[in-house]
């Protein structure tokens, strides 16, 4: 057995060494390469519109609201792994809210600012660009929670709502992150750092699956030897994972306290800008997309929406994968965008 293990070790070492050498030869990975333009911007955000040409006006529009955590480029990682490109292929006119990095002067930016002001401006700008009065929202992860709040407060501006891997009930038993941060003194953290370092959040996310993300991922690189396409994808993913922006301190504290610690949204106790956020005020059709193996936002946390939304037209779409896989896996590319587009187009 010892002899076999030795040979196996040698083979693994050789493959890994080859992968590393090839990885080092690759250039800087390009991410977010789908054609787009900035059609509107303000303090804290940019509104992007994808594609070009007059045919966009005939397509069904959708405004994607991404999370503050990490960058939205995971939705457009590379041409063959791009939810955005697939949505366009399926006939949608895609808009995206890109949150910009908070500076020192943004430490006091609140959750209300993000949802009731910045997101509202993006919705209005999208409506203007489309010559319409309402939008179709697609909220991703934390952006989905933003979209839910917005849809509850601005019912007259949202035609259809799609939530993707979106936490709704933050206190489900399997929500590990929620358990961990329940007793974190977030006010003290914000008073210390001002804006919360993105690196801190990154490290916390890795800590949720320490063996897989800290060890297995590295050794799995050996499987990618001589496969330059997959090595490129690996490099892009690593680049995206590490590129985590700081979080505006006040908004971070609001989100952590209201949602992770108090679970205010499903309790009907959330207040933004003096207005109560009630999920049963959402009357527009909802498509709730969640991942069955999501370690960040457990499916149970997402599916809670069914019990709280006030709409009659509610649909669920379960994806057999994880929180990242739902953006970038080939399986997701084939499954999710066509169904999202079909659902939307049926409700135009």
């Amino acid at each position: 057995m010892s002899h076999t293990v030795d040979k196996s070790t040698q083979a693994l070492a050789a493959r890994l060494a080859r992968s590393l050498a090839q990885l080092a030869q690759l250039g800087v990975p390009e991410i977010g390469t789908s054609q787009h333009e900035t059609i509107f911007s303000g303090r804290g955000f940019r509104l992007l519109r994808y594609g070009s040409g007059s045919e966009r006006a005939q397509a069904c529009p959708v405004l994607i609201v991404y999370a503050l955590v990490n960058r939205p480029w995971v939705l457009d990682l590379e041409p063959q792994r791009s939810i955005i490109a697939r949505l366009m292929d399926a006939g949608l006119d895609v808009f995206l809210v890109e949150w910009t990095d908070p500076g020192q002067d943004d430490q006091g930016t609140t959750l209300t600012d993000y949802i009731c002001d910045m997101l509202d401006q993006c919705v209005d700008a999208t409506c203007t660009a489309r010559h319409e009065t309402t939008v179709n929202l697609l909220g991703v992860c934390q952006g989905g929670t933003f979209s839910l709040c917005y849809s509850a407060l601005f019912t007259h501006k949202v035609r259809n709502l799609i939530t993707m891997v979106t936490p709704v009930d933050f206190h489900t038993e399997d929500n590990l992150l929620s358990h961990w941060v329940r007793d974190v003194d977030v006010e003290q953290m914000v008073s210390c750092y001002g804006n919360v370092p993105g690196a801190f959040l990154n490290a916390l996310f890795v800590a949720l699956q320490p063996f897989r993300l800290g060890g297995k991922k590295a050794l799995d690189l050996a499987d990618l030897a001589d496969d330059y396409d997959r090595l490129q994808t690996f490099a892009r993913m690593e680049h995206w994972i590490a590129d985590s922006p700081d979080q505006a301190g006040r908004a971070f504290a609001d989100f952590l306290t209201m949602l992770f610690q108090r679970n205010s949204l499903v309790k009907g106790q959330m207040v933004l800008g003096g207005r109560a956020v009630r999920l049963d005020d959402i009357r527009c059709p909802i498509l709730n997309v969640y991942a069955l193996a999501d370690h960040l936002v457990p499916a149970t946390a997402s599916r809670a929406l069914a019990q709280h939304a006030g709409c009659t037209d509610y649909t669920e779409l379960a994806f057999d994968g994880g929180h990242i896989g739902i953006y970038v896996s080939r399986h997701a590319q084939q499954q999710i965008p066509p169904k999202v587009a079909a659902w939307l187009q049926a409700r135009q």
Partner: protein
Amino acid sequence: MNPIPPTNWAQALAQLQSQFAATLSHAERTAGTRPLANLSDWLQTFNEPTDPTTTTAQAPGLAFMANPWPSSVSPVTVGTGRWGVAATRYQEALAALHKAWLKIGIEAWSRLHGALTTNETMDNLRASYDLWIYYGEQVFAEQAHGQHYAGLVSELINAQVVLHLECGIGNQPSSDDPQQLRQELAEARSREASLRSDLKTLRESHGDDSTSSLGPAKKVRVRPTSSRKKLTKKRSTKQADRTDAQKTAPANTQGARKKTVKKKPRDAKPRLGDSRR
């Protein structure tokens, strides 16, 4: 780039992981990538269990707690009087989490050992390593979901923040933050909320459905059964090909366990006729 493979597989993994992390952190195209949690340190924990402070904080998942000091600051540059209590608290929090990690590691190792012992054909290095990951995550999940472990993590975070605060590390709150403007904005929003409430009351007093005048939500809320059927029929016609394709697609493709698109029946929303408003 061509390591001489050691005979011990654990050492081999440690060496490979270390080499990988070093290469990755220096590779130009991954600039900005944080160093990976270091498996070699984790494995070393078992080799040198008597020296916990130098190893456990760098175990997978704890790398972010390995060094509470930003690169430009070290404990020797700040006076002990300012940070002594905070430093002690941090050390205690770290030691407590280290203890929990040792427990997880030992249990995972024990399960792995049992599996390898009972499976004599297990002479594949990669399969052994995957088993180690499997049992590691298994034991970790059992422990990490408990209140005790959550308390350890949050205490370590809180302790580190206090330590930084005591030492004046971190971004100072901006002095030119437009607090007055924000206050006025908050007040304006509050007035808007009040006006919206008044408007709603007025509409209700006149027998008007306030929501129904606001757009598409009206159609969903008040749509009679007949129109719902009509919508369904229309959708079926428009999307016939796609729907048929979905229905006939194999349920298990490319590793899929389950693929469901569930349309919630109207009756499944008991609160629809029981609005809280």
